[in-house]
């Protein structure tokens, strides 16, 4: 019995209908004409009333035809940062007929933005781009796409929900890191420390005179002999260090968000400087590394910080 009741209250109409602004005006005029017809008995007013009411019915039929066969496939972006527009693409197809004036929105997961498809036919599927903005960081469970149309007259907006389960990881908001990282692991500053790193990495950048105290092993002997002075080889990344950034799991939500954004910004900065970055979130550790793929791994881990399960409709996230 209880399950039945719950099922009943969870039941949703297959279509929802909203009256647009011009639709409200239209309805007011229709009511006015109807009252005028009833009051005066003027048959021509009855004729107009019939036309207006039939236009409402025709609007319902045509909008249903437009929505009925629409199929949507979501094409997720490579990266999505909180508070920043990103492109979410949809492949819209139909089995038959035409669809007009379709608006696509993500339902209830804090994604703002929509895509608009003027017309789509069975013969020509359409890929359309929505400029979305995620309000906050985290794994978003995209469950439904809302497809609505104001076709044919713009009086009503009819909506249909298309179930489409996918996960979108929203990386922390991009910003500036106002903190410095903890002390680097491994190689200290300068040419000392790990001998593997003394030569620097990357392509040859140039030669300069060896300063006092610098490692003689980096002298370019042939050029030095030619010029008669000691020349040191310089490479692209001279001082490559390793950092492990930490995010404490015990922070309150606001501080946690801030920390994640700072760590993301630091990661980006350190990686762009040639360093290697690792992450320690308490529950998850990522070894230091470099390159775009590694940055993505760090950002993904940061997106999951504080969440056990993806954010769902209504904001019922499972925070750790």
């Amino acid at each position: 019995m209880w399950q039945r009741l719950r099922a009943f209250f969870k039941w949703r109409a297959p279509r929802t209908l909203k009256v647009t602004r011009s639709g409200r005006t239209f309805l007011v005029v229709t009511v006015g004409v109807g009252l005028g017809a009833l009051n005066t008995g003027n048959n021509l007013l009855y004729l107009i009333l019939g036309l207006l009411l039939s236009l409402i019915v025709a609007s319902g039929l045509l909008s249903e035809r437009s929505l009925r066969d629409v199929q949507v496939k979501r094409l997720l972006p490579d990266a999505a940062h909180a508070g920043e527009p990103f492109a979410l693409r949809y492949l819209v197809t139909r089995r038959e007929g035409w669809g007009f004036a379709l608006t696509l929105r993500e339902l209830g997961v804090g994604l703002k933005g929509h895509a608009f498809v003027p017309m789509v036919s069975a013969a020509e599927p359409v890929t359309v781009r929505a400029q979305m903005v995620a309000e906050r960081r985290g794994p978003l469970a995209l469950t439904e796409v809302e497809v609505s149309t104001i076709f044919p007259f713009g009086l009503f907006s009819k909506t249909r929900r298309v179930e489409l389960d996918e996960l979108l990881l929203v990386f922390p908001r991009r910003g500036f890191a106002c903190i410095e990282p903890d002390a680097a692991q491994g190689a200290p500053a300068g040419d000392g420390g790990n001998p593997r790193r003394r030569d620097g990495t990357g392509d040859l950048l140039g030669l300069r005179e060896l300063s006092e105290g610098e490692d003689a092993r980096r002298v370019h002997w042939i050029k030095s002999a030619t010029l008669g002075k000691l020349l040191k080889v310089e490479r692209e990344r001279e001082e490559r260090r390793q950092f492990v950034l930490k995010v404490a799991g015990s922070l309150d939500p606001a501080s946690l968000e801030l920390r994640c954004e700072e760590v993301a910004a630091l990661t980006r900065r350190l990686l762009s400087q040639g360093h290697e970055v690792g992450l320690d979130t308490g529950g998850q550790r990522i070894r230091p590394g470099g390159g775009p793929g590694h940055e993505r791994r760090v950002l993904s881990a940061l997106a999951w910080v504080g969440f056990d399960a993806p954010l769902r409709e209504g904001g019922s996230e499972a925070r750790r």
Partner: protein
Amino acid sequence: MTPAGRTRTRLVLRDLSATAAFASIVLSGSVPAWALVAYGLALLTSLLGRRPLTGRPTVSVILLLLTAVVLFGASFRGMIDLVVAACTFAGLVTSHRLLSEPTSGTDQQVHLTSLLMLAGGAALTGELWYGLCLSAFAVTSSISLGLSVIEPEGGSSEQLEVRPLVRSISAGTLIALLGAMGFFVLFPRLSWNIASRRTPPGLLGGTTGMSDSVRLGGAGDIKSSPRAVARVKVRPDPGSARLDAYFPGRSFDVFDGREWRGTGKAKPSRQMVRLVKELPRKTVSQSIELLPGYGSRTLLGLEHPVTFTAGSALTATGVTRTAFTEVPDEEVRIDQASNGYSYSVSSAPELQRETLEDAERYQRLPDALDPRVKALADQVLGAETRPLASATALQRYLQREYAYTLELGGDVADPLADFLFVRKAGHCEHFATALTVLLRTRKIPARVTAGFFGGERVGSAYVLRAGDAHAWTQVFVDGRGWVTVDATPASGRGNQPPRLLAWLASTYERLEDWWRARVVDYSFQDQVDIARSLVSPPREASSSRWSLPALPGLWPTLAALAAAIAVYGAVQRGWGARRGKRHAATGFLEQIEARLDRAGIARLPGEPLEELTARLSQIAHPIAPALSRATRAYLLARFGNQSLPATERAALLQALVRRDAPSSLTPSHP
């Protein structure tokens, strides 16, 4: 269609829908001329793509305030009806919006004011044209709205094929129109069915010219207008297609050489007028409706009218009872000036009247009558003195010796002498004047009577048209009273429009009659009748109230139209089915193959397109790069479930044409 093309089409359709709505009130003839001119100029400017009021809110507000003050001020002072003022104001607001920046908000305002105009038009007019205006508005505004909903916010640069959209919306509009008819028929009439406010004279005004006098002369041609001016229901119904009867309106006794006038004194007005002391036994009753085009208050009736009753005037506020005023031996007119009238009249085929009290009144001649006129009468009549015989002799003479023409001879000093001795041709007024004056030269009492001759069957009534206006002579015969003698040749009596115009007018009249009976005056009783007819079949199939008017050539035309539509539909379906079985990309492949053929590139038997492309690439054929792109696009569209937009497809095909291919390429043997 390009975005600019779509916008232009949408705005033109919007303007046309607004114009259809404005026309619905203009056709009532109530809209002030200056408002009509203002709207016309605004429409023209808008159609030319100019929007002079864009970004000028102050000018807009001042203009609208000014028009509101003028219109509603005039309404307050009783110079213009409030509904007309409101409709005109809606029209001017619409014209203002046509000249403003074309945003979606502006479009909505135009459609809203157009709807208000249509609602106002329903109160002002009941003509068939209103139905056409309503349908035109429904179609054009629907497509315009449809074109606006496919435009995203902020505009679009995308080329779109709008034909499917127009098809879909047209189907929706058709559903809406059919639904409107169904609703109209079935929705119970819960209120009193007061007929709508009848139309004022309309744009053409009154056309019959039933004035206080008949003046000879003038220049130009008399137009034979097919416009209906009166509907006459005769009881007992003669049932004939044409009545060809005289409907006298007004008689004239005094002729001054150029003009006929009546000198009778009006009696006090009454609700019922009886022209004879004793009613004849045999009378013919008529219910007559004088339409807005009639333009006079003089009442008509079949010859010889004896009683006028049940007069009502159709005013802007509805139907009101009104009284009659009799001018003895001259006319009966209705008291209240209005757009249209209805009344009942009884007529006797012949009225017995022994003597004429004031015979001298009908024997008076103009002071400066040409002596040749009397000489002519003497010459024709000789010793004949009997009134009717004299009249008949003169009638025959005039019909034999004079020609009928609608061409006017211009203003001359003595139009009668000009007709009799110079032009020897004229219209009905010349013939009637000549016969009357010739009779009077012999001291025979005679007068000119103006009215209508004709009566064409439309539905259950006979219609009199403006072109049926006629004048004839009545001669007094002791013991018989006034007897009609028409000197005009038979070919010159009644309406003589060109055949096509007559057919159009007749068709329109029948449709108008059907429209009035089935739409404007549709009532609760009609609904009951329909319900009854559904329950029990009608006794006579031919007497169905809802059958379409009997239009000559209607059913063959409709049948031909239906057949043409069916054939077109079948061809479209067959074509669509044939196309539907194929993949959309197949057409593209055929186009590629056609271009390869034109370039003289032959494929080996069974060689697929991709292999041909590879072969041409190997030999570095000039067409190979373009063909390679086209082949890839085809394969992606055909097997990769990717779209191939029309623009890209056209570009790929165009690239194939541009290559400087050798004239021919002989395939190597496999």
